[in-house]
């Protein structure tokens, strides 16, 4: 009996809390991905690199003496023009070609290669880690939790809720959803569709950057970080149903629990294949994902 309790206290509970913070992290990255797909119909293969850029910006600006709390605001603001330019300068060029999914996927795939390699050129190939903004840990019922992870979970959830409210409840969100549903209809309502597309893309990119700032102290910063993390984010987006925010959140939290628990029960090396198998299974049984898609109810 005691051993079971100890197992829960020292092994299972910390693992599940780690999973929860990982889940929030994955959802933060996946959120921009799912918004960009749901509203623009674009598979952004470079999303992981935008996440990495956010982390590197936080690292560089932090080293230059800028306070972490300021970074949370500044980095997404820097990412917005970057995303805007990428949408107008690259994606719009192929947006109206016959096979939008494939062409935009290829284009952003090319972009991801260039961005990742550029990060290597500028920052070198080594792993770096910014200092933890909130040191220390608390002890609740004998379970020890690092403060920053707790903060990450709380702030992450607030961001997710805020984003869901913006997309689903505000006039701006309604305009964006209208533009996603029918470009011409939106234009006839006086909504400048092209600017909305670029703005939405920039918003998604800013979210990726914000995730980069928040996650850098936990997962470290290295050039391939985007590419490693994005596979998981894609899986979450697919399982949750491309373009569904609620689905992304649920899938993100569940799949990261599957990941941490399977690495506990089976073996850490098999947790990835298990998670990807779930993705394949979901795709095969329910290609539209477990939940619907925004703007396409």
């Amino acid at each position, binding site marked *: 009996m005691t051993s079971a309790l100890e197992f829960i206290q020292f092994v299972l509970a910390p693992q599940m809390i780690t999973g929860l913070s990982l889940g929030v992290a994955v959802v933060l990255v996946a959120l921009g991905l799912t918004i960009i797909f749901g509203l623009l119909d674009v598979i952004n293969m470079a999303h992981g690199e935008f996440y990495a850029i956010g982390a590197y910006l936080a690292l560089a600006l932090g080293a230059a003496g800028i306070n972490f709390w300021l970074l949370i605001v500044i980095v997404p603001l820097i990412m917005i023009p970057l995303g805007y330019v990428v949408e107008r300068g690259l994606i719009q060029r192929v947006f109206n070609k016959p096979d939008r999914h*494939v062409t935009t996927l*290829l284009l952003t795939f090319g972009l991801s290669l260039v961005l990742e390699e550029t990060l290597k050129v500028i920052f070198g190939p080594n792993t770096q880690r910014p200092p933890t903004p909130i040191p220390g840990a608390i002890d609740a019922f004998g379970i020890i939790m690092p403060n920053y992870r707790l903060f990450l979970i709380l702030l992450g959830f607030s961001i997710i809720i805020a984003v869901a409210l913006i997309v689903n409840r505000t006039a701006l969100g309604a305009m964006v959803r209208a533009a996603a549903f029918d470009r011409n209809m939106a234009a006839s309502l006086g909504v400048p569709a092209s600017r909305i597309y670029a703005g939405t893309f920039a918003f998604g990119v800013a979210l990726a950057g914000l995730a980069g700032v928040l996650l850098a102290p936990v997962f470290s910063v290295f050039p391939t970080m985007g590419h490693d993390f994005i596979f998981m984010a*894609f899986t979450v987006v*697919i399982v949750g149903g491309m373009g569904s925010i609620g689905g992304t959140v649920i899938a993100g939290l569940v799949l990261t629990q599957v990941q941490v628990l399977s690495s506990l029960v089976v073996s850490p090396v*098999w947790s990835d*294949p298990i998670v990807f198998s779930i*993705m394949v299974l979901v795709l095969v049984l329910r290609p539209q994902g477990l939940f619907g898609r925004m703007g396409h109810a």
Partner: protein
Amino acid sequence: MRSASSKDASAFLAFDRSGLAMRASHVLVVILVVAAFGFAAVGAALNDTFYLRLATEALIFGGFALSVDILLGYTGLLSLGHALYFGFGAYVSALVLKETPSFWAAMGAVLAATLVFGFITGLIANRVRGVYFALVTFGIAQVAAKAVYNTRALGASDGLIGIPIVPINLGFMTVMSNAPVAFFLFTLVFVILLYVAAAYLLDTSFGRILGALRVNEHRVPFLGYSTHRARLSIYVFAAIIAALSGALYPMLRGFVSPELMFFTTSGNAVITVVIGGVGTLAGALYGSVILTVLKSVIGTMTEHHLIVIGILFMAVVIFLPKGLMGVIRPRIARRLRGGAR
């Protein structure tokens, strides 16, 4: 009436744009083969090993890119995990060769195993379309690659090493896999045979159904064809082409590693096909040569060659959606059409 019609029949083929385009691809491949023979002659005269082996590798990856183009360019299916079959072929070949260094045994095993493996995974992948197909192929490959990576019997992360030198008995002569010139020429012939098989299949009535699927899959069932069966058949065929190319890899390099199945390998093949020219077959071979040359030339200047290749790739996607061969091939096709009339 009948004689008049059959006279028309041959004249009709001048309006068969896909057939003309395929003949233009043949012209381009012949040019490539001539250039390759020239290259081999120079390599032999200079007693070179390094560049001949590099070129052999380019041909092997060209064969793999062929299979990606069969799916993407001729059927409209973007696979992001096609390296699965390239790696599968390489591993099966390596396992057989470690037991017995017989080329034909390895090829036979790869063919049979891929037929089964391609069919099963094809059934899964072909449940979905479009972008979901891209993601499900990616997912399947990811699962398989990680499984190989974790399996000690398959060498885990180290892969399989110590593949013996393979004597390839062709009846009239025997090619040793470690002889640079001979193995280069053998690989050339082998990959050209893969090209011929693919080009022939795509030019048949069956092949035309695939083209129809790419252009407008909704009408195809009303012409009397099951879209699912056509798609699955070509998927298995493409898997076999990829696996047969992969089967040569351990003979050239003496080892296989899980990287062969990873997304990077799949992505490279997609880059190769897009730069060379989607839907041209010849573009897959040219693309592989171009990328290999680019990598080794830029590689002497900087290790960050991916920046250049990435930018080139993006530029092609935006400005030359049909790739390099998409620019050259229509000119040749026009000449052929002029000749046919």
